[in-house]
């Protein structure tokens, strides 16, 4: 008898339960039970994890941060009702694709600052969000715009902890002494993004020049 119980086809149950789980996610979103929706997006700088709450985009993570850890972090800091729901992030995913194809210079998505500490850090990120495509700003400049002209180093730390890179373009903040400077998501990505946006035009191809962008 045990053998007969095992005769249910494993692949069928696997597939049917996957479909049923998607239906659960769909129903959860419609019943307002989805506090955080997560999706993956392919990009030239690696597979990105994006997460949104009802208020807006709350997190973007590079693959260097393992997806399972990011999910745990979201569950602990926001709500354990985290669901993998690509459809809830359709607009964000599309805009990111357009951005990497060079067809989009501005993101039109609402942002939820829940993961950005209030105060100076938040002001730094808000000022950074206003740097236009193709332009760069310096740490000192951003610190000044956030209300503390001498806090360039603190501004750098706030940018390093940016919960929504790319969309809040911390890659557009560079040191006044030259070079692209540091980046929470590895420096090669910062250079890639700046080059893609044309902000590094006129500089050598991939070689560290030591000179100041623009």
């Amino acid at each position: 008898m045990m053998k007969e119980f095992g005769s249910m086809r494993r692949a069928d149950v696997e597939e049917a339960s996957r479909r049923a789980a998607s239906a659960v996610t769909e129903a959860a979103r419609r019943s307002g039970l989805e506090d955080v929706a997560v999706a993956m997006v392919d990009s030239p700088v690696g597979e990105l994890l994006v997460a949104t709450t009802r208020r807006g985009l709350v997190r973007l993570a590079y693959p260097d941060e393992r997806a399972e850890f990011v999910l745990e972090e979201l569950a602990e800091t926001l709500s354990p009702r985290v669901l993998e729901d690509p459809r809830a992030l359709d607009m964000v995913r599309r805009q990111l694709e357009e951005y990497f194809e060079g067809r989009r210079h501005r993101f039109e998505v609402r942002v939820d600052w829940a993961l950005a500490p209030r105060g100076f850090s938040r002001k730094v990120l808000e000022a950074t969000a206003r740097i236009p495509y193709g332009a760069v700003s310096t740490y000192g400049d951003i610190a000044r715009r956030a209300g503390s002209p001498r806090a360039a180093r603190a501004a750098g730390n706030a940018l390093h902890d940016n919960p929504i890179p790319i969309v809040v373009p911390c890659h557009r903040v560079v040191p006044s002494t030259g070079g692209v400077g540091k980046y929470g998501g590895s420096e090669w990505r910062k250079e890639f993004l700046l080059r893609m946006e044309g902000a590094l035009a006129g500089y050598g191809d991939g070689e560290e020049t030591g000179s100041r962008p623009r």
Partner: protein
Amino acid sequence: MSLPPFATFLEEQRVCVYRFLLAAVGPNDVDDCFQETFLAALRAYPRLHDRSNLRAWILTIATRKAIDQGRARARRPVPMEGIPDRPAPVAFDGDDPELWRAVRDLPLMQRAAVIHRYVLDLPYAEVARALGCSEEAARANAYEGRRKLRAMRELEHQGGRR
């Protein structure tokens, strides 16, 4: 111990819950019961205190949904034989549909115990948790269910149907 993200929990438990519900309520109602089970779990999730055994917890909810579903079905007129409510997407009953039909004819506690123990291969301690009864009662229900299935099987054989 902190709660895993619901997405992780759903991914880890979906196959087990689906197997249980498929056996407990059959292919016509499995998807509805599955959805109700996980939505109920999602509602209660942030307030869940005992996080030590999430599988037993979700199987408890699934068992209750299967029982509710069985009662609702008993009140409703039985659909005509051969005309299912909706097409079953795949032949889930494996190569022994009669055995599965017999399982679904068992009384609820016996049915659940048999499925938890023999389909999902859970130890009796977990069967008991999922059914909300003692380990002894779980063992007794599984034993009785299995005995009935065997008896039915023997009747069939005597009737020359196999």
